[in-house]
């Protein structure tokens, strides 16, 4: 019994405690407050809303683990979305074929990756602060997007694009499938690849990592590139869900992704954090807003409650660490 518990604990890591508890609390509170909460409808709405924020959070996670940040995620996503839109528009609009769409998506991934490569190169070689570099990229992409679209929406896509945002396969929403595949990919990347290993090490101490013979520049460029590619995936999903692209879509997600990482136990200074707890944290945030919606609370209030939840988790974590210290003291 204890060994099973021990194993679960080591697989999930200490980061799991916060989001795990929050998950249980949210399910209990709303389960009692509203009989409709524990229903397929709630989970359906969560399943459709989760992927956008989730994919962007995955894009934010890698740079944070290296001790950096990528503030350009939402605009990278939308510029990638615009790429798909233009490819479709230029090749028949509503009548464009599946092949054209796939080409557009590949180009979008390339554009997302390119945004990451540029940021990664600047950060790795000039040692400029990631906040400044990605802020510059964010402003550049926003300006570029607004200039090219005149600030408006681009819409009118072929009919087969819609199901990517709204459809289900075997009862599971397509965006959720995409998101879960990406979560799995990130989980393997961080836990089992050299790049993942180096990401954590760089986040704790870049110089010591370099002294150990790790090509830290290459790792940083790759991290931001993958972050950009993940943004592009989010951009494509957003395009399909809204059936339109606008450069400002999902702007409010930017800081929520950072907070979702912290709620998932990611160290704000880098070096520590796992994908699965972040995934659970995202589920908690969505359940919370769906639950509040159900009991008739204002949508804007949900955002405020997210803020309170995060502060609460920080305080609980502090209390837990105090208790741990006093237990260790007494034990020794």
């Amino acid at each position, binding site marked *: 019994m204890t060994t099973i518990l021990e194993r679960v604990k080591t697989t999930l890591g200490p980061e799991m405690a916060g989001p795990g508890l929050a998950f249980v609390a949210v399910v209990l509170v709303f389960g009692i407050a509203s009989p409709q909460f524990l229903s397929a409808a709630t989970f359906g709405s969560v399943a459709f809303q989760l992927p956008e924020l989730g994919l962007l959070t995955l894009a934010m996670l890698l740079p944070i683990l290296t001790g950096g940040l990528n503030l350009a995620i939402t605009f990278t996503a939308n510029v990638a979305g615009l790429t798909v839109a233009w490819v479709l528009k230029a090749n028949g609009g509503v009548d464009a074929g599946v092949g054209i769409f796939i080409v557009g998506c590949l180009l979008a991934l390339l554009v997302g990756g390119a945004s990451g490569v540029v940021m990664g190169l600047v950060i790795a070689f000039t040692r400029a602060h990631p906040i400044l570099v990605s802020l510059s990229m964010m402003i550049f992409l926003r300006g570029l997007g607004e200039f090219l679209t005149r600030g408006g929406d681009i819409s009118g896509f072929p009919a087969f694009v819609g199901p990517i945002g709204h459809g289900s396969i075997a009862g599971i929403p397509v965006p959720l499938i995409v998101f879960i595949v990406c979560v799995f990919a990130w989980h393997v990347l961080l836990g*089992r*690849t*050299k790049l*993942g*290993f180096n990401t954590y090490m760089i986040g*704790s101490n870049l110089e*010591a990592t370099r002294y150990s013979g*790790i090509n830290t520049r290459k790792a940083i460029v790759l991290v931001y590139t993958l972050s950009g590619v993940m943004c592009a995936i989010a951009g494509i999903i957003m395009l399909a869900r809204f059936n339109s692209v606008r450069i400002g879509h999902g702007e409010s997600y930017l800081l929520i992704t950072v907070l979702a990482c912290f709620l998932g136990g990611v160290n704000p200074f880098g070096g520590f954090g796992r994908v699965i707890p972040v995934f659970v944290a995202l589920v908690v945030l969505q359940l919370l807003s769906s639950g509040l919606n159900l009991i008739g609370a204002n949508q804007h209030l949900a955002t405020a409650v997210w803020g309170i939840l995060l502060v609460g988790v920080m305080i609980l974590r502090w209390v837990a660490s105090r208790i741990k210290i006093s237990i260790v*003291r*007494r034990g020794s």
Partner: protein
Amino acid sequence: MHQATSATVGEKPLLSLRNINMTFGGVKALKNVSFEVRPGEVHCLAGENGCGKSTLIKVITGVYRPGDGAVIEYDGETYSHMSPVTAQDRGIQVIWQDLALFPEMSVAENIAFHEVVGRRPRLVDYGRMRRIAIDALARLGITLDVDLPLKEYAIAQRQIVAIARALVGEAKLVFMDEPTASLTQSETDHLLNIVRNLSASGVAVVFVSHRLAEVLEISSRITVLRDGALVGVYPAAGMTQSRITELMTGKTFDQHVRARPKGDQPVVLEVRGLTRPGQFEDISLTVRRGETVGITGLLGAGRTELALALFGMLKPASGTISIEGKEIRFGSNRDAIKAGVAYLSEDRLSLGLIQPQPIADNLVIASLRKILSGGLLSEDRKRSLVSRWIADLGVRIGRQADAISTLSGGNQQRVAIAKWLATDPKILILDCPTVGVDVGARAGIFDIVAKLAESGLAIVLISDEVPEVYFNADRVLHMAQGRIVGTYDPRQTRLEEIEAAVYA
């Protein structure tokens, strides 16, 4: 030998402690310790890390409250415990190793702010501040520009500022925690002179230092602690370094010269005329299979820069590096590691190991390809690789997933050595491998080094402590101002000769 003896035997002590017990969560940090300081004496407090030195100082300065039955007699009064305010008011000052100064503030502010701040009217009198600072520095025979921000000064001068600040409070008893740890020899000599002057002017100084040579030079008496208990109080006259080490660790060390001729072995590393202007010039040396070549010299002699060039992290302007007869140019340290060079950094805290990360990850970081399985990192391979090295080098750890920072200096250094051995190096460069390692654990590190050399590894051993290279290397090179200025064979040279040349 200097003897600071303004204190005469039989004089009433300035500070006298009896029955000092201190317990932290079940661990007895101090066991019935007594301690005595006479007015104006220089007294050394010696012991390994964790022996209770700092705890004792904190009891005397009122940070900790000792267990029942404690008696603290200081300057004619008896206390059952001190408080920080009383300690300070009555002239007890501590200069901690980190100095606790404000780098952005001026020298005058750093020295005098305690005196000036907190008085009424609540206005800062900068003129008075400057006068206090200049006076305090004058007492030490030093002139500094008191208006400059402290960060403009090097660590040696900051040390002096910290001492000056202690003197402003009319100190009678000053504790100095490892004051020479980051000073060069000439700076250390200067500091020791200041300590002598303080003592002559009636201020008692309690000196905590790892460097036993200067302990013997400066102090009149030595109190040795081990595992929280008093071992004894000894007059410095007639003491030797090895005797103090024995008392501190409770073990006997017979240091003998390990040098053996290795002339018949093939050359592994050959350096010819290696130059990087301003850092090292015209360095030529060879290291053979199984040979340990020691490089010693003062801080700033270019030792670490040379090592970094051999490790591919600094590009030499001219000269060649050959490994097993093949000339190699390194684009980065990755090339050097591939060619079989390993470099143990002198700065274990910020360059050698990644302190917050797990022991296991620190050990495998330089040899990740060994734990790959089908292109992915394997937890099982990692665990077994780490277990093997932990056992091989006798590292004492809790769990592999614990942060490396939870280990003692000696155990950390073993992990750092294992990290490099896991890369299958031909040449191992050890840059000051005993920095921050307890005296008792140092011998263990050198036993490992000797075994590695025996197994055929070519070793470059860098240290600013001449005895370390003298006893553990086959040949000793003396570096000064970027050049190799002397080569010695420990079997034919006395330690004192080399020391005289290095510290001249």
